[in-house]
């Protein structure tokens, strides 16, 4: 990062405290579908503190996106959300829509998975980057434009001043994702939510984006919630990680603790399923079966039908409580087998 970064206005002095930026408590989301209610998220609780990176991992359909959307009031209309969400010092769930919208726009920035579709194709990117700032910070159109150039430079778009008026289709996938990040940063949010921002990208581009976010985070002190299904990405960026399965968090804790001493059989299977160069030629440790349908979740641990351990039969019929197994490290299983 070169001298460009110094131009980034950083008037606000963020007190680096341990206060949580976003905390989610017992969040449940049920989506009405044609074939009945789907419990997409069930009793999920977590928080992310200032400057911290919180990672949410899990397979497709495990409820990662829905958790974030519901927490910020963006869940689809068909969804029923219960639970409490605090953003900064506000009880989001108690706020009227309008207030919640303003808080969200002002203090939370979003980056979504697919850079190809998450930008409006018929608005110039510059306009899209700062329209939130126009709304929440009262920037004039002119100031907004200058700010857009600044932000585009910040995220490493070459010749930003010229490209501020370009349309999304004129950018490559990686570039668009940078634009999306610029957009998320426009109001200098306290929290950046990135929902699989690199899944659609190549590894080399993914590396660029990860570097970029990490770098911005160090300089701006933004809290980050990062959704991914790639454990490697988690290992690289997260301070805290939560593993989701079938709409629930099955294991949660500091990233080192979870990677060093994975406790839930799912977490362990997940880590073991990765090909390991040192064990070439051997079969991988596969998890049999397929993830459960949110329409038809088992009564106990959702992982039970696929669980390779099945040590404690209670897991089948009884929902295991989230139990601490280390400093800030909690697990939702009755099983306490050998860890490590």
């Amino acid at each position: 990062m070169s001298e460009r970064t110094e131009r980034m206005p950083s008037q606000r002095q963020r007190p680096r405290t341990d206060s949580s930026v976003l905390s989610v408590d017992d969040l449940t989301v049920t989506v009405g579908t044609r074939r009945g209610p789907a419990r997409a998220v069930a009793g999920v609780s977590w928080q992310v503190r200032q400057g911290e990176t919180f990672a949410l991992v899990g397979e497709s359909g495990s409820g990662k996106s829905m958790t974030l959307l519901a927490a910020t009031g963006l869940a689809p209309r068909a969804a029923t959300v219960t639970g409490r969400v605090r953003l900064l010092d506000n009880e989001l769930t108690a706020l009227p829509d309008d207030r919640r919208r303003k808080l969200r726009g002002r203090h939370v920035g979003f980056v979504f998975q697919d850079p190809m579709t998450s930008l409006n194709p018929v608005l110039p990117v510059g306009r899209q980057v700062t329209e939130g700032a126009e709304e929440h910070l009262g920037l004039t159109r002119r100031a907004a434009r200058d700010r857009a150039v600044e932000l585009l430079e910040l995220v490493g778009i070459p010749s930003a001043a010229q490209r501020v008026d370009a349309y999304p289709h004129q950018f490559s996938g990686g570039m668009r994702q940078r634009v999306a990040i610029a957009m998320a940063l426009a109001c200098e949010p306290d929290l950046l939510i990135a929902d699989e921002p690199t899944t659609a990208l190549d590894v080399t581009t993914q590396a660029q984006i990860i570097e970029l976010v990490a770098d911005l985070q160090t300089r701006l002190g933004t809290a980050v919630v990062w959704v991914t299904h790639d454990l490697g990405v988690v290992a690289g960026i997260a301070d805290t990680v939560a593993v989701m399965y079938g709409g629930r968090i099955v294991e949660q804790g500091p990233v080192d603790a979870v990677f060093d001493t994975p406790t839930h059989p799912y977490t362990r299977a997940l880590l073991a399923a990765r090909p390991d160069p040192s064990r070439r030629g051997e079969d991988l440790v596969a998890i049999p079966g397929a993830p459960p349908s949110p329409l038809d979740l088992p009564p106990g641990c959702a992982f039970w039908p696929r669980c390779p351990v099945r040590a404690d039969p209670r897991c089948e019929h009884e929902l295991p409580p989230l139990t601490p197994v280390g400093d800030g490290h909690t697990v939702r299983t009755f099983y306490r087998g050998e860890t490590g």
Partner: protein
Amino acid sequence: MSATTESTGRRVLDALRRDPLAVGGTIVLVLLVVVGVAGPWLAPAGVNDVDVDQMLRPPSGAHPFGTDELGRDVLSRVLVAARVSLQVGAVSVGIALVAGVTLGLFAGYYRGWLDSVLMRCMDVLFAFPVLLLAVAIVAVLGPGLLTAMVAIGVVYTPIFARITRAGVLSVREQVFVRAAVSIGASDVRIMRRHVLPNIAAPLIVQTSLSLAFAILSEAALSFLGLGIQPPAPAWGRMLFDGRGFVTDAWWLGVFPGAAIFLTVLAFNLVGDALRDVLDPRQLTLAEARRSTP
């Protein structure tokens, strides 16, 4: 992405059953077919039973829909005319379907110059408003049932050709077609087994909607005096003949018109419901174009 456990057929039936409008449409269609088949037996009087002493009588017990300007029983004529409408609809859409699908299939599958030539031809036909072209064809060939059917068939051919071609173009880019090629399947096999079944949905939807438009077009042609010729009863023609009398004899305008409306509505409702189930993203070309005369 969870697996569904229903077959397409079931899905269609279920969805149709859930949509009250579609249920209504289906009932009307069934009744219509019954009337179309059994019309002459259902009719209380002969369609051409002229009785000049009973001219322009309002609806009554003897004539529930009243009588027309020649003293004929309007109910009987409306019932018997259902067959004509259904026949025109079926034959003309049949023509359009067969011609359009054949053209579209070849154009889309083989592409290249064949595609360009065929599709430019379709563009040319598409450049004429539906009814205008039909009227022009009828003008040239002379009015009558057969010409009306041919004209309407020709007019709706490009829609089917385009839908088919668009379907073929997208289906043939699908991985499963590439998979079939990779296995060594022949063109004919691929077209029959993979392409056609996969474009059936939009074609079914379009057929249903086209039936509606074809019946409407026939009514319009007949209303202009260019369709079915008297004394054969046809709804549009009845409106045409009754036009001079509607101020005195509202029943001459209301009943045949309502019959057209209900029929077309039924086809539209069912077509729409089918689309919702089979092919929700399909905006038929007919919709992008003027659908009614």
